[in-house]
């Protein structure tokens, strides 16, 4: 089974506003997840500066021996990234789905404060459904 290890959402200043892990691998405590989030934010920013070509939008995929990290940055600078098993497909599509859920259930919620940690029941419910659907789709192939 292709596995998603964890999902992060970081705001435009690099603060972790959402973290969720799936399954036992790659589980981290709160401090570690915060560290990964701000590290990734900085690396992403540095990569934009160091890129030899102009118009670089930052790292989209990081491949390591034991995991892949797919990142999607929205126009406002909010970053969504998912850590998964090496070679997992369709992660870009999944990140777009997560982005869509974020715009729907977080940004349209009057009780959500911008740039603050996400605590929205509907977002959690719909995210769980989306991830499950993604797993089923992967199993079906």
């Amino acid at each position, binding site marked *: 089974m292709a596995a998603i290890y964890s999902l992060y959402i970081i705001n435009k200043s690099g603060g972790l506003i959402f973290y969720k892990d799936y399954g036992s691998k790659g589980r981290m405590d709160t401090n570690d997840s915060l560290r990964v989030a701000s590290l990734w934010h900085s690396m992403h920013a540095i990569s934009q500066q160091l890129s030899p070509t102009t118009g670089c939008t930052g790292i989209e995929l990081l491949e390591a021996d034991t995991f892949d990290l797919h990142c999607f940055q929205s126009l406002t600078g909010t970053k969504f990234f998912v850590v998964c098993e090496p070679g997992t497909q369709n992660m870009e599509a999944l990140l777009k789905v997560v982005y869509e859920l974020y715009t*729907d*259930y977080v940004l*349209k*919620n*009057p*009780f959500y404060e911008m740039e603050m940690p996400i*605590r*929205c*029941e*509907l*977002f959690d*419910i719909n995210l769980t459904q989306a991830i499950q659907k993604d797993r089923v789709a992967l199993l079906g192939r």
Partner: protein
Amino acid sequence: MIGAGKIKQYANILEKPLGKGKQEVSLSAFAFLFSELVQYNQTQVDNISELETRLEDAGYAVGARVLELLCHREKGNRRETRLLGILSFVHSTVWKVLFGKVADSLEKGTEHEDEYMISEKELLVNKFISIPKDMGTFHCGAFVAGIVRGVLDNAGFPAVVTAHFVPVEGQQRPRTTILIKFAEEVLQREARLG
């Protein structure tokens, strides 16, 4: 040319019939606007019940206008005068125009004679809203309750209308019930009319 001649040309613009216009508005646009309404009112109040009252008042103004408009547009300037008539008017006509569908159910309260309930699985205004745990029983449906009160009150059926969450077994999300409690005079009049 493809498509040429499909649109009828009118020499005089005044002869062109008026279009019916688009019947629906964007849900996103509404959701953002409603979210702003709630956020703005939140800055103006000290407690949750006050916020609910303000949302209800905002809805009341909508209800009053909707009644006027729909009586003219759908009912040929006639207005319902009986209790069940006005309730089904709210449940079907008003709901359809505002939310694009008929309300899920309309029931009579079992405990009290003067109570009626309109239930909805997922209220349109609540579609994207998660109420934080610390806000207790607060319900954004107060706005819809206000609309219902506006319609009823202006039709001559004064009532107290409130919105509640009702948990449903086996469902993650609770249902919304709009509770309508009519004033005494309404029931007395109904009894007189027979």
